[in-house]
């Protein structure tokens, strides 16, 4: 059922069994997983069912460090969250992403890819993509035109992406969520504080407010914050009445290790026999099910001490006319930024892109990097002194990339260039910013994928992580974080599918906890 909290007139606490805060990809996925389970689920969403400028403004914040998209427009604040405009690129993390790597400080998760796999399968259904299969040979068998570059598979592999329609969770699942007997969706309920018991070991209630001045207490047995990496950190830090440094922040970790995927034009590939290379085409304008990006095998990542990253191809004739998204996505209003990006790039090239990858044979390709950012404690979300309309301190983001991140890109391209040379298919050219290995500067075109990760990172050790392997905040028995804020490292892929999988894993854990400790409502 749906309750608009602006019309709610009560001073009593609203009680349930499970309280999920945030109705984006993670929160809605978890709510659907709890349908018909016999427990009362409170799903709190700060916005309504459509864009509202006043609500969106709650996400505004200051930024320092590496140039980034305005915080206000980097996430959407209404039912469905950022899936309301996501691109739908889905892939899975690699086994190496979970491992401790001695050349990547702070790397290593307390879980493995195998732990996530069953939940990836379920996540596939939610984002409406094909079989849980990311093997190049499988996809080649489905389409003879998907030919791969003839590169040594012990060094280079095809990182397969599948394309979600993209599923707009707000539209797709609204009726399902609001029609569920045990799911109580409260819109216009912005959580601004988390209150615990005296010893700060258990949450007693969360306080929600809205713009018409009403506030409510929501009480539950378990609380899951699924508000995105910036907002998850913000609410923990702002809940500082009982824990002066913020909840879960005894070791000054909340908000730190904020990660993005640095995305940047990095070079060119020139091949001697012009080809379409349809396998590497982005799903823009035709009905592709998959796309490959060029990845580096685990063995080579270890040997060359690389960060995990991929290289994607675009026909040079198109790419050279495209503006960097960091320039087009510069408005505070996400609708304007989206439109600017569409107008500058996507609409202008869509038809040509279709033609170039499907009909035309290309000799030159732009090489575009998406790479993990090495976890960095100085890359962080903190609280600003300025408050929002509901009295909550705004978020302040300092995105800090390192020279090591940049050098990893260079090594990636040297290895790729070597393999292209060995294969005899062409040659690789690096862009100017990569030519001097000692040059620490990043080009002004450097952007990100709107992939916010890592502010409540996962670790079994409270001194190195905010949440444990089950996403429970260390030391607070009924408080959990969901989504990519729990990522210890970011891998090379767009995080949506993985954050849903991780959330479904948390969901199963909570189901087990609930059944152990509480009987369902008949």
């Amino acid at each position: 059922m749906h309750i608009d909290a602006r019309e709610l007139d009560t001073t009593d606490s609203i009680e349930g069994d499970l309280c999920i805060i945030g109705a984006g990809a993670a929160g809605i996925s978890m709510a659907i997983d709890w349908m018909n389970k016999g427990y009362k689920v409170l799903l709190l969403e700060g916005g309504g069912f459509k864009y509202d400028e006043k609500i969106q403004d709650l996400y505004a914040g200051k930024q320092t460090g590496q140039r980034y998209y305005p915080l206000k427009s980097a996430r959407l604040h209404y039912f469905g969250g950022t899936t309301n405009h996501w691109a739908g690129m889905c892939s899975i993390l690699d086994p190496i992403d979970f491992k401790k790597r001695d050349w990547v400080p702070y790397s290593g998760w307390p879980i493995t890819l195998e732990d996530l796999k069953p939940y990836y399968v379920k996540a596939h259904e939610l984002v409406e993509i094909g079989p849980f299969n990311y093997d190049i040979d499988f996809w080649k068998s489905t389409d003879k035109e998907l030919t791969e570059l003839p590169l040594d598979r012990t060094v280079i592999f095809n990182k397969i992406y599948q394309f979600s329609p993209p599923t707009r969770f707000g539209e797709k699942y609204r009726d399902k969520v609001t029609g569920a007997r045990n799911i109580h969706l409260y819109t216009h309920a912005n959580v601004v504080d988390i209150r615990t018991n005296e010893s700060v070991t258990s949450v007693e209630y969360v306080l929600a407010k809205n713009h018409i001045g009403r506030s409510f207490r929501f009480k539950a047995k378990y609380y899951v914050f699924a508000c995105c990496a910036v907002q998850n950190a913000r609410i923990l830090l702002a809940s500082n009445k009982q824990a002066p440094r913020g909840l879960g922040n005894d070791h000054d970790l909340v908000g730190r290790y904020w990660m993005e995927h640095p995305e940047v034009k990095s070079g060119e590939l020139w091949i001697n026999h012009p080809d379409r290379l349809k396998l590497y085409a982005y799903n823009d304008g035709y009905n592709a099910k998959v796309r490959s990006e060029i990845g580096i095998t685990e063995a080579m990542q270890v040997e060359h001490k690389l960060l995990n990253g991929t290289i994607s191809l675009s026909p040079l004739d198109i790419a050279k006319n495209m503006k960097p998204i960091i320039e087009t996505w510069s408005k505070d209003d996400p609708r304007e930024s989206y439109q600017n990006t569409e107008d500058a790039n996507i609409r202008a090239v869509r038809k040509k892109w279709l033609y170039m990858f499907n009909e035309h044979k290309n000799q030159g390709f732009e090489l575009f990097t998406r790479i993990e950012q090495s976890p960095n404690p100085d890359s962080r979300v903190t609280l600003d002194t300025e408050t929002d309309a509901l009295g909550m301190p705004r978020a302040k983001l300092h995105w800090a990339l390192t020279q090591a991140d940049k050098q990893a890109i260079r090594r990636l391209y040297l290895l790729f260039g070597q393999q292209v040379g060995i294969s005899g298919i062409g040659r690789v050219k690096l862009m100017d910013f990569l030519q001097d290995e000692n040059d620490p500067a990043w080009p002004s075109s450097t952007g990100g994928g709107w992939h916010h990760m890592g502010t409540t990172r996962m670790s079994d050790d409270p001194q190195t992580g905010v949440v444990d392997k089950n996403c429970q905040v260390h030391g607070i028995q009924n408080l959990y974080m969901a989504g990519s804020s729990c990522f210890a490292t970011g891998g090379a892929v767009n995080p949506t599918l993985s954050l849903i999988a991780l959330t479904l894993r948390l969901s199963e854990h909570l189901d087990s906890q609930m059944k152990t400790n509480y009987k369902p409502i008949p």
Partner: protein
Amino acid sequence: MTRRSFVFTMVGTAVAATLAYFGCKRQVTSQSSALYLPHFLSILMDKSAIEEIGKSYLKKHPEENSIEKLKSNILSSFDGNSLAQKETGGSIDKFFESKILSEFRNGNQEVIDGWVLSVTEARQCALFTVLNKS
């Protein structure tokens, strides 16, 4: 760089006059264009791009800025006895193909003007540039 669509012609009479200069190595004279013409790169790029690579290489390695030095380095191991040469039947084109492949395999590559190149093909670009000047 403009898209490469032509086959390199002689770079001028200066080059033709210089070819005799290469005569100190066996079997080279008749195929000397292979020395200064990085065959694979000439498929991918035009003359000006090759010259730019050549200039960048010479800037990075000023000690090699002479025809004799470049020629010597490019032809190193082209003495009739190297494995690469035996495997390629003495053809200088095949020799270079094999040598460049071997250099990539061994990581004997350099970034010149942004291009990830084998050292030999980078030197070929340099020789092309030097010959063009002379």
